[in-house]
């Protein structure tokens, strides 16, 4: 089923217990930290806010409200650049000097678990940032029988999910049970790669007989939704259908823990574990308040060492290269990875030939032929790329990773994919 084995680089932070990053002098909290409709601000300049207070919301199905991670004063309601390179509305908050992070304004309990998950602003924390409430409300006629928690963390460098499973396994397991009960599933599987035996053991200790913990071969992209469902259930998500068509619902382990927090303590999503690693002086796993700037976080991690060429938000296979470090950590920020010269990919150009080595079709987890898709995209042959199932590409980057002539395969395929999608090809 394809896949690649990039060097893990996880040893740098796998043994570092989660540490709280300091409260910065100011937080720039984006009002769009999720996939879907951006929130409108609920506060104005000069307002006092409490930790946990909702500061942004919008009346839309696919959206998630935003809460203040600190108590403090709003100094500006403006715009910020996100790690993803978009300009979005943001609330700048100056935190109170002694900051009590132990308390927060809880989310009201109306007795409706889904509503509470939504009100807590929970989104997929594996990086996709899709509002969790939507996933917890499968379309009519689609029965979910199995809940899968994704603890693969197949991206190189990242260890935030690893530490979470190791340090708070009961949280993860509780979240799994909540999700199971909400969707009415009968089976729960926590899937993780076999490079984290300690986390698997910790989960098993608290799991009980109703929750299966399954270790899978370490391979990228083991944690991609369709690949994970296949690895655990041997079911393929049918072409053009939602993953729920297999009866499985996949949530990230950190999302599950956040759901448990929200339902048991009314705790809104205000912070997360971020792996700061690569060429920094003090790599580690930090609990970071949303709105903390990447530059502050890098400084806390001791600054860069060596010749840093790219700084990635997320993992190096699917993350975003940052043009500026003055962007805030948000709900989807799993890691900040500083890549040194030599480790980072070369700047990409489309001047190298395909030597037909066969590597990219071999590693493509979707069974596509990346070399053909890239060539056709380069020639703007949109019907041809559509006919070769370009829309099934999950943009994992395994093809570009493996290409010996370093062809920018995924970059070309993305162009073809968006063209095919905008033409409404199926």
């Amino acid at each position, binding site marked *: *089923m394809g896949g*690649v084995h990039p060097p893990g680089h996880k040893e740098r932070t796998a043994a570092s217990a989660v540490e709280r990053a300091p409260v910065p002098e100011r937080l720039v909290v984006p009002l769009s930290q999720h996939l879907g409709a951006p929130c409108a601000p609920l506060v104005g300049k000069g307002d006092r806010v409490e930790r946990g207070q909702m500061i942004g919301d919008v009346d839309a199905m696919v959206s998630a409200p935003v809460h203040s991670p600190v108590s403090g004063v709003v100094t500006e309601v403006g715009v910020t650049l996100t790690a993803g390179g978009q300009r979005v509305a943001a609330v700048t908050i100056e935190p109170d000097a002694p900051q009590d992070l132990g308390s927060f304004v809880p989310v009201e309990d109306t007795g409706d678990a889904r509503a509470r998950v939504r009100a807590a602003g929970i989104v997929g924390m594996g990086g996709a940032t899709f509002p969790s409430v939507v996933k917890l409300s499968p379309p009519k006629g689609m029965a979910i029988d199995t809940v899968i928690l994704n603890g693969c963390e197949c991206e*190189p460098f990242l260890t935030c999910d690893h530490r979470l499973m190791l340090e708070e396994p009961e949280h993860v397991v509780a979240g799994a049970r909540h999700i199971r009960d909400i969707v009415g599933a009968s089976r729960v599987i926590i899937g993780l790669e076999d490079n984290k035996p300690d986390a698997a053991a910790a989960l098993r200790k608290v799991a009980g007989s109703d929750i299966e913990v399954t270790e899978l071969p370490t391979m990228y992209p083991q944690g991609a939704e*369709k690949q994970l469902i*296949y690895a655990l259930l041997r079911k*393929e998500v*049918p*072409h*053009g259908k939602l993953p729920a068509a297999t009866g499985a619902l996949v949530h990230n382990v950190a999302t599950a823990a956040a759901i448990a927090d929200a339902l048991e303590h009314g705790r809104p999503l205000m912070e997360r574990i971020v792996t700061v690693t690569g060429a920094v002086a003090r790599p580690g796993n930090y609990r970071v308040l949303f709105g903390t700037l990447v*530059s502050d976080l890098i400084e806390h991690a001791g600054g*860069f060492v060596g010749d*840093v*060429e*790219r*700084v*990635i938000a997320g993992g*190096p*296979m*699917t*993350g*975003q*290269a*940052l*043009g500026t470090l*003055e962007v805030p950590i948000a709900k989807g920020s799993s890691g900040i990875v500083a*890549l040194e010269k030599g*480790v*980072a*990919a070369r*700047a*990409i150009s489309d001047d*190298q*030939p*395909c*030597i*037909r*080595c*066969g*590597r990219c*079709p*071999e590693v*493509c*987890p*979707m*069974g*596509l*032929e990346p070399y053909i898709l890239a060539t056709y995209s380069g020639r703007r042959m949109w019907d041809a790329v559509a006919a070769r*199932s370009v829309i*099934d590409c999950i943009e994992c*980057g*395994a093809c570009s*990773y*493996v*290409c*010996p*002539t*370093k062809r*920018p395969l995924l*970059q070309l395929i*993305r162009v073809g994919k968006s063209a095919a999608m905008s033409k409404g090809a199926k």
Partner: protein
Amino acid sequence: MSDSRVQQHIVGPSPHITSKATCSGIMLWVVAALAPAAIWAIVNMGLVAVQLLVVTIGVAIGTEAAWNAIARRPQTILDGSALVTGLLLALALPPRTPWWMAAVGAFIAIALGKMVFGGLGHNLFNPALVGRAFVALSWAGVLAGVENRGWFRTLADVSAEGYDTISGATRLAVATADRAASGGYGFDLVAQYEPLLLKNLEGSLGEISAALLILGGAVLIIKGIIDWRIPAGYIGTMGIVSWAFGSDPVFHVLAGGVLLGAFFMATDYVSSPMSKKGRLIYGIGCGLFNALGRFVGPMPESTTFAILFMNGLAPLIDRMTRPRVFGVVKSDE
């Protein structure tokens, strides 16, 4: 926060890391895998071997450099593929091939075998084999003449007679003639294993040692550079067909250009199929046509044409063996 530091960071699309494999790295592994055989040939044949290697490699790289310069295209000789083509061509020619003939072969290999198609990656046929085929078709008589040297029946003969003094048809040619005349063989095929494996001065340069070619091929397979399915399909089919024709399968695999073809020529990425299944089919096809050429056609040395023929079929095999898209059931298509 100094802005200048931020400026240095490169913004590019994911993935932000790549594997260590490079085109030139792969080509250098192929060269390294062929080097033992080439060096062993030089040790045993001396200057003739050096001359042939220098001419083919030099002309191959020179032709590519000149083509790029004239066409005002970026220089590509550092990708290593011209070096591999030159080396393979030398190993596929008899050591006493006149130097000018080898030069013409190398020029044709690069110019007509690769550059006219648009360079590396765009050629349909293996360039080295295009060069060899051109030489073989143009000067068949000359090649046959220079090939007729170097057969000693057992390894012990080598010390008795020097390389220069041995002459006669290759054992493969003799075997073929024997078969045609009587259906049997006038000499012991099994006794030929040892010289063929270790030291063999007949035929082309690369036939010097089957053992070293197998070693080089094994290294490439273990390094993940070539797919075992091509040589396995090729050699397996060659053996089975030889056996079916009542001949000795091991002899027919070791003699002639089969091993050089199976491990190093047929496995050329550009001119072979992409999928695992396709590669197995292709390897089997190469072996089949090579064996048929030997047993049915009057062409004991059919390796070149068997592989070139299968090169031509590779796009068709690719089309027949396209991967199944995840989540798509066959009947959906």
